[in-house]
């Protein structure tokens, strides 16, 4: 059984400009010990989905289900949710500086986390555990650094302290929202390696939200590609990168500069993402899709099995059979005028 199962989640916000439909019917699940990567651009709804699940979207109108160990997180009271948050589900955010309180020592903040969820633990035992955790995430001289304030830590160390805090109560699930985006590549490599080791050691499930396809290729078991508040494609990692079905996935991968080989002109996706306020009918990607057909602009394609594997889902009207799909693409490619970018 899946550890977390999100079913048909809808999230919208009322604003002065109208109703922002941030998430429009998203479903995904994660198994114990697995890593689910959620990838998408700004405004695709990837962060809002997980924040809603954790009860962190204030003032949002939410529909759907989020079953954690069979219990619906969206139906829980604040107190029930607070018990789970931090104890069974840990969270790491992008910016470690604003997630740590500047007035309190790093160690104190970890100790607070431990004592909040374990009423039995003594102060000295909690302190010992905090030092252990800092050591676990590779902070040098943890017995001394435990009494440092966040500003005395570097960016990478703060992010590691955040991970120590998120892992303090051995959560079954870790939600990491752009955990390495603010970090340099060498530090990013340290942090990703550490999440991976902690996962192997404690069997933690991880939901990793990022815009970086390189990070996804590195660590995710399964991948959800989001666009315009919807899941566009969902598959295991190899399928996502090697035999994707959706033109948006294709566009994302092609717009990246190649790391080896010729430096050809980049194949950018023209245009910009759709507005979440006046949501166009049909496929949200239709306006930017190189293979767009008349039907795409009026009818929203369902998210359905798109390949040989039952876990490969795609939301696109293109034929599911690879050869037939290729035929459509070639035909469209030839009939398409060379369109200007943007």
């Amino acid at each position, binding site marked *: 059984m899946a550890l977390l199962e999100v079913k048909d989640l809808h999230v919208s916000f009322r604003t002065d400009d109208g109703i922002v439909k941030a998430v429009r019917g998203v479903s995904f699940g994660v198994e114990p010990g697995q890593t689910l990567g959620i990838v998408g651009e700004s405004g695709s709804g990837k962060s809002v989905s997980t924040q809603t699940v954790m009860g962190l979207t204030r003032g949002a109108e939410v529909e759907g289900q989020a079953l954690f160990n069979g219990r619906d997180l969206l139906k829980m009271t604040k107190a029930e949710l607070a018990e789970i948050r931090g104890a069974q589900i840990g969270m790491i955010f992008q910016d470690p500086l604003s997630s740590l309180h500047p007035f309190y020592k790093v160690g104190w903040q970890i100790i607070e986390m431990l004592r909040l969820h374990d009423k039995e633990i003594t102060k000295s035992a909690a302190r010992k555990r905090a030092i252990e955790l800092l050591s676990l995430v*590779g902070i040098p001289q943890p017995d001394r650094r435990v009494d440092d304030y966040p500003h005395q830590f570097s960016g990478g160390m703060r992010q590691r302290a955040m991970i120590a805090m998120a892992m303090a109560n051995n959560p079954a699930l870790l939600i990491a929202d752009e955990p390495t985006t603010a970090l340099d590549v060498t530090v990013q490599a340290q942090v990703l390696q550490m999440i991976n080791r902690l996962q192997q050691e404690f069997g933690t499930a991880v939901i990793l939200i990022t815009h970086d396809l390189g990070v996804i290729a590195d660590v995710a078991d399964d991948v959800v590609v989001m666009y315009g508040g919807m899941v566009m494609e969902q598959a295991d990692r190899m399928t996502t990168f090697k035999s994707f079905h959706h033109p948006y996935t294709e566009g994302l991968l092609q717009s990246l500069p190649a790391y080896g080989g010729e430096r050809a002109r980049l194949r950018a996706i023209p245009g910009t993402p759709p507005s979440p306020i006046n949501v166009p009918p049909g496929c949200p990607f239709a306006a930017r899709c190189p293979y767009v057909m008349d039907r795409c602009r009026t009818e929203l394609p369902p998210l359905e099995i798109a390949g040989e594997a039952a876990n490969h889902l795609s939301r696109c009207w293109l034929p599911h059979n690879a050869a037939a799909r290729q035929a459509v693409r070639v035909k469209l490619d030839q009939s398409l005028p060379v369109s200007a970018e943007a």
Partner: protein
Amino acid sequence: MSTETTRNLVPGGGDVLLRVENLVKHFPVKSGKLIPTEREYVHAVEDVTLEVRAGETLGLVGETGCGKSTLARCAARLYPVTSGKVIFNGQDITKLSARRMRPLRREIQMIFQDPYGSLNPRRRVGSIIGDPFAIHRTAKGEDRKRKVQHLMELVGLNPEHYNRFPAEFSGGQRQRIGVARALAFQPKLIICDEPVSALDVSIQAQILNLLSDLQRDLGLTYIFIAHDLSVVRHVSNRVAVMYLGKIVEESPVDGMWAHPRHPYTDALLSAVPLPDPEHAAQRERIILAGDVPSPIHPPSGCRFHPRCPKARPTCVSTEPELISRLGDDADHRAACHFPVEDGEDISLSTPSIAEDERVVESGLIAGA
């Protein structure tokens, strides 16, 4: 090693457009003491010599705080330099007065990272792009509007959006506004400081293509600063890697990627996550311990020695020169006493220097 392809050579000869010589930039640090006994300095850029040839793109890479932006800003004379020389187009501009600098300002332009912070939200786009014409008093009224609309068209913006505010544009379009403004006087050199870091990948590709089209059509020279190494590889002819205010390696891009000589370059290149799961699984990662040391008291000798897996006593005592190593071409230079051989895996090395000179980490990382 002299098999580097010629496609890195700059078309059209490539005279030196910009040269910085032994450039040093220190920033004073405020001391917490009431009566400061000794003034402390951040050694942001330390004795850097670098050339940029006309028509090329020089990539400048390194981690946060390595001095890459400071170096570029010194080169554009946006910061006064502590010592050393900046020579632009054959002229020493290090000590030029603000007035004498003004005509040269047209020729050196900058594009910044944050398309939200670098545009005044209360001014119309036409007036933002028209600023250079107003400041240099070269065009007024209808003439200015015409020129601005021409620039907008050049960067792929709709000229009819002349009267809109920045808030009405998306991130990618705002970055185009920044590019248009930089192009106003047909500059020779554009310093792009993380121009695509704040953009989504699909938009990032649009801006990178725009920059390369403009370079081809207008014969521009770029200094391209970025922390995304795939982007740097894509746009650059040559790359300089900085670490703690020093250039540790400099080379044409293919040579650098094929044979990184400095252990830091090697680690940096191996740390980039690749969007290809097959490749990612095969690749050896070199994971550096610890963080970049403080630039107020940089380490002795080679500044990388506390984190370097190959560090030896010489590295602590003697600073390595930036020269061609292991028979590389003359334009591939590395500042390392013990450069990385082809096929060498530096993660297997252990430093042979005293423990207190190394960065030691506890727990998982050290056990790696």
